[in-house]
């Protein structure tokens, strides 16, 4: 009698495991297997939302891409792997961008991806905040993601036989039903900005929210411009990335992201980081030059980055994230494909022109500042409140979505 007891318990457990595993496999909340996909049931892979690094670290191996696009969420939400600006010889392309990534993490995830030998091209969008010496790795960076020992466990066990995967599956079904037109986490790693900002009502207020987040000393999980420092270590990490690509015969394409001038111009100035920003640009220009790699700068005050803040906008979702349209322009310029870009969008930096480029940017800033006095006064007042640790005025951010 008791002999059967244990046997039946094991049998029941096996059945429960089979049911849970099968359910998770079909719903596929992390978008890893893609065997069954139906709008209204499981097209919106909600499980990915808080587990982007986990999913990206697996997909990048599963997809065997020839080209990687790396960087922060600016890359993740803005560069389409299917963009017409990408030559067909680059395909398959995988968008390997991750939210709030630091330069050290770029290096670690790049070397993880290079375990698969077919990668030939890497495009990296660089951001000033990646180099913050005050926070070199995200607190929640998980080294087991890039550890080959846990790869099988991560790919075949956790997404199927885990209670948290089960709840992610249920969430996936729930949101897929509620938002039938939403499909945010694609198989090629891309997370289109239009899907991220699904149902966006007020571009102005989303700008307010983002600007505040970058400078607020009160409500922050991670550090942006409110607490920023530079040290050599971050530049060494950058150098190691270039070395890694050189060693693996990889064509590397580098550019500095164009966030809106109100943030990666005024926000940097308001937080007292202008000098560090210029030093940073100079240093990475010299390092890239040492490796014979062109570094493109799309930031600053040009016809894209100074787009008027209104609803809707063609170039920006918020002050940090540009739209796919801008992504296409960047790719066209960096990959030298034939698409027309605005004449003032994108400067190739060299040790020869970097100093004059910095002075030019300052002059352009002055023009922009003077011609937008009322808006600038309001913006800088908000920045000062954020830096003072005040709470954001609820009216500035209500009704974004």
């Amino acid at each position, binding site marked *: 009698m*008791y002999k059967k007891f244990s046997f039946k318990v094991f049998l029941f457990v096996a059945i*429960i495991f089979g049911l849970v595993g099968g359910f998770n496999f079909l719903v596929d909340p992390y978008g890893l297997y893609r065997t069954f996909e139906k709008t209204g049931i499981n097209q919106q892979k909600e499980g990915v939302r*808080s587990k*982007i*690094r986990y999913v990206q670290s697996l997909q990048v191996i599963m997809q065997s891409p020839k080209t990687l696009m790396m960087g922060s969420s600016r890359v993740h939400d803005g560069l389409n792997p299917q963009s017409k600006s990408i030559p067909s010889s680059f395909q398959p392309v995988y968008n390997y961008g991750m939210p709030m990534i630091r330069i050290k993490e770029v290096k670690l995830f790049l070397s993880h991806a290079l375990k698969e030998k077919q990668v030939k091209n890497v495009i990296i969008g660089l951001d000033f905040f990646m180099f913050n010496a005050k926070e070199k790795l995200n607190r929640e960076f998980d080294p087991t993601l890039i550890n080959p020992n846990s790869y099988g466990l991560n790919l075949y*066990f956790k*997404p199927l036989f885990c209670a948290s*995967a089960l709840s992610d599956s249920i969430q996936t079904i729930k949101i897929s039903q509620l938002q039938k037109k939403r499909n945010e986490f694609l198989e090629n790693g891309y997370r289109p900005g239009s899907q991220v900002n699904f149902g966006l009502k007020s571009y102005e207020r989303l700008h307010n929210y983002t600007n505040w987040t970058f400078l607020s000393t009160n409500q922050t999980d991670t550090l942006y411009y409110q607490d920023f420092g530079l040290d050599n270590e971050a530049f060494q990490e950058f150098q190691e990335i270039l070395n890694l690509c050189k060693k693996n015969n990889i064509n590397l394409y580098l550019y500095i992201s164009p966030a809106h001038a109100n943030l990666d111009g005024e926000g940097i100035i308001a937080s007292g980081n202008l000098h560090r920003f210029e030093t940073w640009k100079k240093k990475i220009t010299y390092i890239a030059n040492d490796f014979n790699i062109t570094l493109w700068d799309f930031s600053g005050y040009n016809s894209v980055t100074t787009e008027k803040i209104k609803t809707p906008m063609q170039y920006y979702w918020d002050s940090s994230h540009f739209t796919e349209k801008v992504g296409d322009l960047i790719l066209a310029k960096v990959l030298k494909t034939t698409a027309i870009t605005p004449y003032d969008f994108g400067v190739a930096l060299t040790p020869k022109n970097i100093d004059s480029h910095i002075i030019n940017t300052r002059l352009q800033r002055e023009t922009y500042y003077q011609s937008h006095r009322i808006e600038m006064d309001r913006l800088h007042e908000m920045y000062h409140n954020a830096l003072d640790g005040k709470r954001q005025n609820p009216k500035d951010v209500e009704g974004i979505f």
Partner: protein
Amino acid sequence: MLFNSYEFIFLFLPITFFVYFWLNKKRLTQASKAWLVFASLFFYSWWNIIYLPLILGSILFNFAIGSTITKMESISTTLSKGFSRKSLLAFGIVSNIFLLAYFKYMDFFILNTNTLLGTQWNLMHIVLPLGISFFTFTQIAYLVDAYRNEVKEMDYLNYTLFVTFFPHLLAGPILHHKEMMPQFDSIRNKVVNYKNIAAGLFLFSIGLFKKVVIADTFAQWANAGFDTAQSLNLIEAWATSLSYTFQLYFDFSGYTDMALGVALMFNIRLPINFNSPYKALNIQDFWRRWHITLSRFLRDYIYIPLGGNRNGELRTYSNLFTVFLVGGLWHGASWMFVIWGALHGSAIVIHRAWQQFGFTMNKYLAWFITFNFINITWVFFRAKDGVHVQNIFNGMLGLNGIVLPSFLANKLPFLNQFGVSFGRFLLTIKGDLVTFAAIAAGFAIIVLFRNSTTLSEQLKPTLSFQMWTSIALAFGLLSLTKVSEFLYFNF
């Protein structure tokens, strides 16, 4: 190796089990014991092999001392020999305590000396060997038992098995030599017993569920409140302290259930360690129900040798208080544990005095006071330092403000004038209404349910027992790991 790990559940346990009973079936009983010792040492070394020599040395030393004490008794009982038995015992105990002191309390001692005398000694940052608090106490008990002529066993293999037997090695229960050795030798225990396996599986499954599903759920709020929160409002602070109170119980008793369950599969009955402690109606009652084998150890090897209650009331009070101070410090090298021990010691003394005067109390009020005392004193047990304690207490007293759920804003608007606000009331500890539901469920379980040991004794091979065991085991296994989360959604 932890019980709640894949390697233990899917590899270590099945292999150890089958080889053990296969050897027994072949009547290789010595080999089967040796196998169990080997498996236990492997279990111990899994995390870090560096402390294997330490535990082996400790076992060899204590066995040598213990068996010498026993032998001396049988050879001669002259006065001088009797004296040297005692000094041998003293030497053994002091050595054990010295070992524990070195590994567990050295940095604490250095830190306090530096503070008191202004010295500048460097901390040694010694890593605490796994289970040292447990195997040291177990072996001190063995030495004392040997001295009291209660030890008959003198076989080194048996002794090693008794100390290292993997179910109790890392987190107890703290065993007595005399309750274990006969079980290892009993012929009946050498054959597979399906009833024991069923009961063991039941206990293990319930324990696993308690640990990885219930305790780990409470842990997220307790950790957020104790470790990261700057200031907690009234509800957050109480949710934090109650979450920890439940976390600790479900974690520790769950782990003990797993230990008892695994041992039972090998036909070994470990002593019960928890008996619904949060149902206690007074503090003495609590200590008869919480970590029972520790209380037993402290009673037999500290309280009674100090004189127990034989030397008048005042000495009894001071003995009780001392026992709890030692018990507090045993839990860890920090003044917080000492304060916690002192508080419980004081409560025990007050309770005893109360009883002496013949007072009684309403049952429900008694439970309420006892539970709250335990809940509040756990804050000292968990907090890193006085600042954290103060942070939690300030919150629990409402000094950091009171925030109520926003749906009450329309119903109780007059509270605004008393400084009560409405909004996201569990924001700081990352909780929500689920936290409330979990705490309510926690109360229901600790007060209304029979505990796992009682249930396992009533186990019948019925469908409902099978279902509950399967569900607990399956959900325990499904919750062993999770995909690591990343919380910065944007930028």
